[in-house]
């Protein structure tokens, strides 16, 4: 470990990430604790947001305007999780489990980032472990959107269908941004692999 006098960008990045790591861990424990406490005592406050398609003629407008002149996509409704727990327990458990899995994966990815910065602080950047860490982060970023979509399909769509009489069209909101970030990280992992090879050669030069 370097002296604290040698503070540089790596040190400050590591310090910030380290701080957020502990904050996130604490938050995760609090959220899970809250969820289970709420489940035990029935003090449910969590809400699930639903998009409900409505037509302009369903609205009562203050000023008389022809409904054909207005375009409304949807209204947002909030569902108290208490209702879900009491009436659709399977869905409620599914949402809880998927939430915990998602949070666990996020923390796992964040932990990889923290360890990478720690190794940079210790001047051991080009290591096999860091290459694996980068690939894990890249994989998690790429897998995040499909995971989110799957959870939506499994749990939110059934709730929508139960509650809303209108026909709902579900579309996959694909954002290429995260996918590109994931690919970029894979490319960075390849660069790290080359750096690792060069570092090994340097170490074996006498």
């Amino acid at each position, binding site marked *: 470990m370097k002296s604290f006098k040698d503070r540089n960008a790596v040190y400050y990045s590591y310090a910030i990430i380290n701080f957020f790591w502990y904050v996130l861990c604490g938050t995760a424990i609090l959220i899970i604790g809250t969820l289970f406490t709420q489940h035990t005592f029935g003090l449910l406050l969590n809400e699930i947001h639903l998009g409900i398609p409505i037509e302009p003629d369903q609205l009562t407008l203050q000023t008389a305007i022809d409904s054909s002149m207005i375009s409304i996509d949807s209204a947002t409704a909030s569902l108290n999780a208490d209702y879900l727990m009491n009436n659709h327990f399977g869905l409620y458990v599914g949402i809880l489990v998927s939430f915990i899995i998602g949070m666990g994966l996020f923390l796992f990815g964040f932990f990889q980032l923290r360890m990478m910065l720690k190794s940079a602080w210790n001047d051991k950047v080009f290591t096999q472990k860091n290459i694996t860490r980068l690939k894990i982060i890249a994989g998690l970023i790429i897998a995040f959107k499909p995971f989110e979509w799957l959870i939506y399909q499994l749990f939110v769509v059934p709730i929508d269908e139960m509650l809303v009489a209108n026909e709902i069209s579900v579309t996959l909101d694909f954002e290429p941004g995260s996918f590109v970030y994931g690919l970029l990280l894979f490319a960075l992992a390849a660069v790290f692999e080359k750096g690792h090879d060069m570092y*090994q*050669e340097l170490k*074996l*030069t*006498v």
Partner: protein
Amino acid sequence: MAIIVNLDVMLAKRKMSLTELSEEVGITMSNLSILKTGKAKAIRFSTLEAICEALDCQPGDILEYSEE
């Protein structure tokens, strides 16, 4: 093809130990071990020069090319 390092042969000829060579040349034991066991990826001219001087030999006496 491979480059074979005959450092142990030269050390035996000069009746010198690896520790003695390490002290005379100023290269760490671990680096000399890497060289002796053939794990080295590269050797600096300065290292080769120092070893040749200490063992009173030519680079060809230490390094040998072998076609595998």
